[in-house]
């Protein structure tokens, strides 16, 4: 029998029709996640063509990108002051009502960043195909799902047919040996991987992360790693489901129950890559040698250990432009660089374990004077859980802002943004020019590094505070 990878098994299990010389494969989609920014034009297309949604039960919507994270009003509602955002939010409400799609609306109990709520509701399950009009859909690969971002035209295709036309991607195995040292997190691991293979290093491939260091990660850490697969250009990132996956899923609202759970477990246990199965490419690295990472440029591949220096020598056009934008010089060290803002949040690092890490460091400490710190939980559920554990008080006592759930300053569509020229350490996923606001300058790092930097007011090596 052919030895197959995790990807091969999920791909082949969802072929409505295989690829031919003339036509791409037709791939069935198990779960379609929808949000307010990339869906309105797709619903308009359905209306123009008189089409319905084929499987509303396989479609789940929420609001996260353009939604405010400012505190609730006296009426308990989150005020939407931006008329454009209000129009998008209104359009999604109307579209979901008209087409019979379940919506976790702004401020409701299940609302949050689409890639945070899918897993926490148990909607995300091993072996599924999952798509969303958002590139960070790769997050769900942490469960052994094949999950990837699509454009708005494809959102329309999935709404109408539950299928996508897809060319078969190649496979890339990234094996991580060893174990992450103290103070070095899943975020540092994925930044190190992207720095190693480059922002285009995964193009055309689905990555499978494997090896002992990956198996030792918690589910939330696995999501952080898979989340940033797209930052290496990969179509998706996947990890074999294991006992940690099943333990995370058991009892979640949409996870199978009773006999269905036992049956699902049997299927899920067979998903891991067969011994000896071949990948198109393989890369390996040793987690034990990693350090906290930080970016210095304007893409996530421009990352170095926090005690390192910006590359020396003639930077060339691309890096030169990036360093000009960042106000940095070749050879410059980042440790001690002053910071204006710290952002803790985003689909990369806004889950309860991320907030616990940051709060653990901020407890009994104060945010440095002049530094603004925003802590934005990934979902209403994460927010409630954090408040139940008293983390909100830790953040507030330290001098940080505690906000409602959403994408917030990761994409800066909702009013949470940097001022031109400001420097931020962010736990988000993109340091692109203007990503956190026009002229804003972003250093990507882990929640630990972000918290340590908030206290120091300068880029800090968290390991010195953990001693």
């Amino acid at each position, binding site marked *: 029998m052919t030895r197959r990878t995790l990807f091969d098994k999920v791909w082949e*299990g969802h*072929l*409505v*029709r295989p690829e031919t*010389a*003339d036509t*791409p494969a*037709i791939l*069935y989609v198990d779960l379609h996640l929808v949000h307010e*920014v*990339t869906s*309105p*034009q797709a619903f308009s297309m359905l209306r123009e*063509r008189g089409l319905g949604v*084929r*499987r509303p*039960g*396989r479609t789940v919507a929420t609001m996260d*990108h*353009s939604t405010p994270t400012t505190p609730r009003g006296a009426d308990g509602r989150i005020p939407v002051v*931006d008329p*454009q955002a209000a*129009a*998008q939010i209104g359009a999604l409400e109307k579209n979901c009502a008209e087409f019979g799609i379940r919506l976790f609306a702004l401020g409701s109990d299940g609302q949050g960043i689409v890639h945070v709520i899918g897993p926490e509701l*148990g909607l995300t399950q091993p072996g599924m195909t999952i798509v969303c*009009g*958002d*590139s960070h859909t790769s997050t769900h690969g942490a469960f052994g799902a094949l999950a990837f*971002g*699509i*454009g*708005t*035209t494809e959102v*329309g*295709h999935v709404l*109408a*047919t539950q299928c996508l036309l897809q*060319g078969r*991607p190649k496979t890339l195995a990234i094996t991580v040996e060893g174990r992450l040292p103290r103070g070095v997190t899943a975020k540092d691991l994925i930044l190190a991987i992207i720095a190693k293979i480059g*922002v*285009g290093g995964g*193009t055309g491939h689905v990555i499978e992360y494997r090896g002992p260091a990956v198996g030792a990660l918690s589910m939330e850490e696995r999501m952080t790693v898979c989340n940033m697969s*797209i930052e290496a250009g990969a*179509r998706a990132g996947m990890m074999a489901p294991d006992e940690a996956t099943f333990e995370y899923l058991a009892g979640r609202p*949409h*996870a*199978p129950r009773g006999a269905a759970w036992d049956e699902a477990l049997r299927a899920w246990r067979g998903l891991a890559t067969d011994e000896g199965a071949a990948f198109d490419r393989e890369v390996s690295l040793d987690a034990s040698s990693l350090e906290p990472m930080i970016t210095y440029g304007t*893409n996530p591949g421009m990352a170095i250990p926090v005690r390192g220096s910006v590359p020396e020598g003639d930077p060339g*056009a*691309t890096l030169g*432009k990036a360093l000009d934008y960042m106000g940095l010089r070749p050879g410059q060290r980042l440790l001690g660089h002053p910071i204006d803002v710290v952002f803790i949040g985003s689909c990369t690092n806004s889950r309860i374990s991320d907030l616990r890490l940051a709060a653990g460091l901020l407890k009994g400490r104060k945010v440095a004077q002049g530094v603004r710190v925003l802590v934005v939980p990934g979902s209403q559920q994460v927010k409630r859980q954090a408040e139940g554990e008293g983390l909100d008080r830790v953040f507030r006592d330290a001098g940080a802002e505690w906000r409602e759930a959403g994408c917030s300053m990761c994409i*800066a*569509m909702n009013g949470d943004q940097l001022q*031109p020229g400001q420097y931020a350490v962010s736990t988000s996923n*993109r340091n*692109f*020019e*203007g*990503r956190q606001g*026009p002229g804003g300058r972003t250093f990507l790092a882990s929640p630990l590094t972000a918290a340590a930097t908030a206290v120091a007011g300068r880029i800090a090596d968290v390991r010195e505070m953990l001693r």
Partner: protein
Amino acid sequence: MKTIQSRTVVLDIDNIDTDVIIPARFLKVTDRSGLGRWLFANWRYDAGGAPRPGFALDLPEARGAQVLVAGDNFGCGSSREHAPWALLDFGFRAVVSTSIASIFQSNALKNGLLPVVVDRATHRRLLAQPGAPVTIDLEACTLTLADGTSARFPIDPFARYCLLEGVDELSFLIDQEEAIAAYEGRTAPEARAT
């Protein structure tokens, strides 16, 4: 769409991401029209919204150009289809690079913006000659320079067929109803549905 004949506009920067192509603050729309105004907004306009003099897209010789030549790994980052919408609305019909990010490439093809991936030598020549006239032939899958030298580019055969014949991919998918229903029956996905 069969051929594009145009002068080029050159942006010799690698890894131009979709946030640069169209910043997120311009995505708060519910339609797709008029986005060309915000194409490369952070590079084209200063903080006050005034055009930055000398930006490649706004030079007089760039007027009417339909071919954008950019550095490696064009279109990386987010899945926003607003990026090809903005390029098309501005007037571009093809983007040329040594590599083009997957989601951008798929979005571009679905809107009739041609992603043209050429070899490094051809790319270097194009980068060195902003404004050079080129001919892109989708039928032959070639990009030809003024001196007659030409480079072949790869393209998904089905996407090429759809563009040449004006076939709509969604109509093709809808025509697969029988196969889709058979798949659903075979895997009983509704039994697994939550």
